[in-house]
């Protein structure tokens, strides 16, 4: 998922620097408050840990191997801000040291792997392991799901960054100047790789290490000690907020779909492009492409907006189910393995 130099146009990589600079600044402030002077050695060693995790090959079925990024693991242990900083440092060392480039893409790479992945992973973990107390299987399960989902999220961002290049940077005759593949190629390929391979690697490593910590040093996983009543209060308010949030989400999803009258893939791309003011050639064909790209989003035999909403919801439920099931299987596997 490491984007080298030359893949992204300046109008893509510069905004990511723009996003990351304040985030890094904020991160250093927040950690200074939390850890004071200790943050320097702890961050340095966490970055070293992150760097080394990325060096470990994990087997995947079929004889090949890949590596995990460790962002979610570090976020679970040290919190999302420390993970943001540590993983960023590890990525910067890689870019500067190994010479495999990525200098211009440091902002984008850190955004995907250090920011999106750490934060989404951390909050998914918190949500799923919420109120689990000493229920360690729940925590491992939560860690696996968080790792799986958030690496896919990061891969999605990477694919979009890569895939928008032909639209935003091309010559007059249509020759792409940077990454040559459009979204309809980049997104499915990255999604497939990460749904089928790297997601499992990340989930496996995260789950196994969390299982290990839960046994050897459980205090590392615990939320700071609260008094009993304060704990109860935070639990019930968090639960209330969770339900309200979920309710709003459930209500909004079909409304949004009905309003646009199309399935996710279509409005996502076209509207974003129009908002950015691009009218690239060949965009008209895109909607057809997307129709076939995501056939699961429309149920056969049904037509119109209702069908796409139903199809979307159906796909979403199935998709979530698949993710949860795989996470469950992995967490079982983790237990068996030990």
């Amino acid at each position, binding site marked *: 998922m490491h984007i080298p130099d030359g893949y992204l146009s300046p109008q893509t990589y510069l905004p990511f620097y723009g996003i990351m600079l304040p985030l890094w600044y904020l991160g250093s402030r927040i950690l200074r408050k939390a850890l004071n002077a200790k943050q*320097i050695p702890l961050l340095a060693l966490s970055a070293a840990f992150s760097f080394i995790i990325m060096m470990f090959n994990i087997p995947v079925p079929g004889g090949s191997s890949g590596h995990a990024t460790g962002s979610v693991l570090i976020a679970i*242990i040290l919190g999302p801000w420390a993970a943001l900083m540590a993983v960023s440092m590890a990525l910067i060392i890689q870019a500067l040291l190994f010479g495999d480039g990525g200098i211009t893409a440091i902002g984008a790479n850190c955004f995907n792997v250090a920011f999106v992945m750490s934060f989404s992973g951390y909050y998914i973990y918190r949500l799923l392991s919420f109120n689990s107390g000493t229920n360690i299987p729940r925590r491992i399960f939560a860690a696996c799901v968080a790792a799986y989902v958030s690496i896919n999220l990061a891969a999605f961002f990477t694919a979009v960054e890569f895939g928008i290049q032909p639209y935003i940077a091309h010559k007059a*005759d249509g*020759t792409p100047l940077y990454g040559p593949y459009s979204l309809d*190629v980049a997104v499915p390929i990255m999604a497939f790789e990460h749904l089928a391979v790297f997601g499992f690697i990340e989930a496996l490593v995260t789950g196994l290490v969390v299982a290990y910590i839960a046994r050897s040093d459980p205090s590392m996983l615990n939320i700071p000690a609260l008094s009993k009543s304060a704990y109860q209060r935070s639990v019930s308010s968090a639960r209330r907020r969770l339900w309200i949030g979920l309710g709003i989400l459930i209500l909004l999803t079909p409304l949004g779909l009905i309003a646009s009258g199309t399935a996710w893939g279509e409005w996502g791309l076209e509207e974003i492009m129009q908002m950015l003011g691009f009218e690239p050639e060949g965009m008209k064909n895109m909607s057809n492409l997307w129709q076939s790209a995501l056939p699961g989003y429309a149920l056969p035999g049904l037509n119109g907006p209702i069908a796409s909403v139903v199809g979307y919801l159906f796909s979403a439920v199935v998709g979530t189910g698949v993710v949860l099931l795989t996470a469950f299987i992995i967490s079982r596997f983790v237990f068996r393995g030990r």
Partner: protein
Amino acid sequence: MKLQWLKTDYGCPPSPQLKGSPGKKSYIEKTLKGITSFFMNGLFSEEIISRGGLLQSIDPRVKVLTLGLLVVAVSLYKHLSVLLIVYFATVVLAYFSRIGLRFFLLRVWLFIPLFSGIIALPALLNVFVPGEPIFDLVTFKNETALGPLRIPGTISITRQGAQSVSLFIMRVAASVSIVVLLTLTTRWSHLLKALRVYRVPQFFTFILGMSYRYIHLLLRQIEDTHLARKSRTIGREKGVSGRTWTVSQIKFVLNRSMSTGEKVYLAMVSRGFTYELKTMDNFTLKPVDYIWTAGSLTAIAITLGVTWI
């Protein structure tokens, strides 16, 4: 007398039998190879720095600025010819910096963007990049769709595709070459000090330096435990024990890095560290630095001018 088994019999060595094809590496070996190449990388650049060529003699601050600008410029060019010139310039620089050309070319073309090249090739086809066909490969009866892809009736190489692939590959090659030149001729510590001159906060450069320093320590420890394990095991490692090894190493690194972090903090406090970091540099600019800066900035300006005017 007890200890009957404790006797000495040197025996004779069995004739070695190689199992499996030598090309197929287990993933543990792959990991260890990665660790070894990490150390080799450091040794290589240390050796190249000591050769004292052109880029080695240039002040790190100047080098970071000019080569950094050049990478940005490479991301802005629109003409293949300009990219080719810049790429050729990096090869010339490598030559004058006494970096073996074979090593330099292999490093850029074989190891690093191998996957970029493979990734890029399909983009030649009108399946991926639509455009004017210049060479037809296959003709089907009608258009088909393969998942998200619309396969046209005739698959052909397009002019746009060919241009795009060559632009893409040369852009990646030029960028990677520049970064390789920088890292091969500059010590990590000097690189960080140079970044500090350009207002990268001390906080970041210091952590980057410390992190790299402890990556070395932790990787050495992994190597040592692997050697210790290897000397004790008989036969090849199996899949399961391999997974156990990998996970146990990750746990090991986790524990070590956390406890080392705590101890290093104490070592810093012991020598007066409280909150702010302070360092002192001893860089001085030489005439060659000014000449280099003027020359490279002019070159960047001209090439950018060609692109945008």
